[in-house]
């Protein structure tokens, strides 16, 4: 894995599970017939005795994991984020979150890139749903290396954790042995005209946008949020106070995810002009990932344009 190399996050995550499995003998993985897609089948091949295929029965999968956790096993449940967080939403809430079960939840195929599967398969609200669950930790890693770091961190935490991964290739932006700290933003660029706060696969795009902005004479601070919950309150407060205008960028609905979380913090601590870039309140559709991302300004050009408009509009917007 080299810096700049494009690797599917799901593959890196699937391999990370295999590596974690070698170190942690009581770790199990459960999937609901989408192992070749989520890449948990890599774990299944490596440890057939520790992989449970439940069939297309997400609710039962979550319940089984809950029961297994009472015997000291640390199960991962994995399927597409859209089904994981809604089809099995009540089971995650009651059998996992309320019971404080030590179960790790992987929502694969987060956001728009679903291999042209369209509206029914695109999780535009998984972060919002999971963030609202009491006690749930929510991670949205940026690149393949951070997906690995999140898998590791999830295992280090006692209790339920949601880790979102995406299907499409994402450029490696973090160095080897990159670590994630709960509730800590990663400052990827310093600037003074506008703060961009991004999460997940939008961060590599935001990083490119920052370079574009530099060429245009706009100085942007880029904060990456690997954990949407807990969120880095201090970093947001500092951005509102020292820069005063924020652009949030996420592969998710603008309602309830990163943008919503940043607005909540800013509104309580130091209100400022914030623009949320993400999907408006709509279902997505099938088609080419990049064409569709472009429609919502979720490519580096779109991010740069939105940031520039904010920087030029100043704090009044």
């Amino acid at each position, binding site marked *: 894995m080299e810096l700049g190399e494009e690797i599917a996050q799901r593959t890196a995550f699937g391999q990370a599970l295999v590596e974690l499995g070698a170190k942690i003998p009581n770790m199990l993985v459960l999937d609901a017939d989408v192992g070749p897609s989520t890449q948990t089948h890599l774990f299944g091949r490596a440890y057939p*005795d520790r992989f*449970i295929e*439940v069939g297309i029965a997400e609710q*039962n999968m979550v319940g*089984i994991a809950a*029961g297994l956790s009472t015997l000291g096993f640390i199960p991962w449940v994995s399927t597409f984020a859209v089904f994981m967080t809604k089809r099995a939403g009540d089971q995650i809430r*009651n*059998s996992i979150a*309320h*019971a404080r079960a030590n179960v790790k939840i992987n929502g694969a195929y987060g956001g728009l890139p679903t291999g042209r599967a369209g509206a029914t398969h695109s999780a535009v609200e998984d972060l919002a749903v999971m963030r609202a669950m009491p006690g749930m930790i929510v991670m949205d890693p940026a690149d393949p290396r951070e997906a690995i770091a999140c898998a590791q961190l999830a295992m280090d935490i006692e209790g339920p954790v949601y880790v979102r991964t995406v299907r499409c290739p994402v450029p490696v932006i973090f160095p080897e042995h990159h670590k994630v700290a709960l509730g800590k933003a990663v400052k990827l660029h310093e600037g003074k005209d506008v703060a961009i706060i991004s999460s997940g696969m939008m961060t590599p795009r935001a990083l490119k946008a920052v370079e574009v902005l530099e060429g245009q004479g706009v100085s942007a601070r880029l904060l990456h949020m690997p954990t949407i919950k807990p969120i880095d309150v201090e970093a947001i407060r500092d951005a509102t106070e020292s820069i005063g205008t924020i652009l949030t960028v996420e592969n998710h609905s603008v309602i309830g995810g990163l943008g919503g979380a940043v607005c909540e913090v800013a509104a309580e601590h130091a209100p400022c002009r914030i623009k949320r870039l993400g999907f408006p309140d709509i279902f997505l559709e099938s088609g080419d990932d990049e064409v569709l991302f472009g429609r919502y300004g979720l490519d580096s050009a779109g991010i740069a344009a939105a940031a520039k408009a904010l920087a030029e509009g100043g704090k009044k917007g």
Partner: protein
Amino acid sequence: MAPEYDVGSLESVARQIRALIIDTAHAAGAGHTGGSLSEVEILTALYFSFLKVDPSRPDWEERDRFILSKGHASLGYYVTLALRGYFPLDSLKTFDREDSALQAHPDMHKCKGVDYSTGSLGQGLSIGLGMALGRLKKNLQFMTVVLLGDGECQEGQVWEAAMFAGSKRIPKLIAIVDYNKVQLSNTIDANLSLEPFSIKWEAFGWNVLSVNGHNIADLLSALSRARAMAERGPVVIIANTIKGKGVSFMEGNYEWHGKAPNDQEYIAAKKELSDR
């Protein structure tokens, strides 16, 4: 572990549980009385005879596991656990009150003896299945028993779990259905019939036993057969019961699903129970 009781003594325990359910519901002004009264003999047979449990060691690794999947019937469960010695009978006075260990629905982190939190229907069998799978992986010998409500069996997740357990022939897993024929808003048959119920479970790969769920001797014999049969795959005991059993004006009446008796009803209910 389980004290040795004859059927007569167990029947007397069941009478005590029934009376305490009415007392507790009346004092709290809350509780799911109907479904708690229908499960009394089932819980008596389990906690005072069948289950290998030790109230002084609620976390004992080899204890048999019990999940009240019909978590709203917590009243009957708490009374049984208290009588069995998990916590003082006095705690029942706190039922459903603020800060109580005895929440409206069982909370494993608050109430001693509760093996898993429940409340949202349809989830207990999957959790029990997970325990049974974990037991196999760890080569422990305990039995997992899940008590389901009949209305709860309208939930799809129950059948996802049933399909998995039956198809994989998961051993040492016993489901008991408290088939009291009545749910919150009406009878089961009026809302959504489960029949042919036994045939459904059989088709899902389960061994099925049917009993009178208010007859302790029948329950004990079914549980004993189930223990042996469960070595080869999952077993379900369909316990035919009466919602509100023991109090004539509650029996078979859906209005008593989630209601506690007022003072007048309390006196009448207690009189009926003491006359038996």
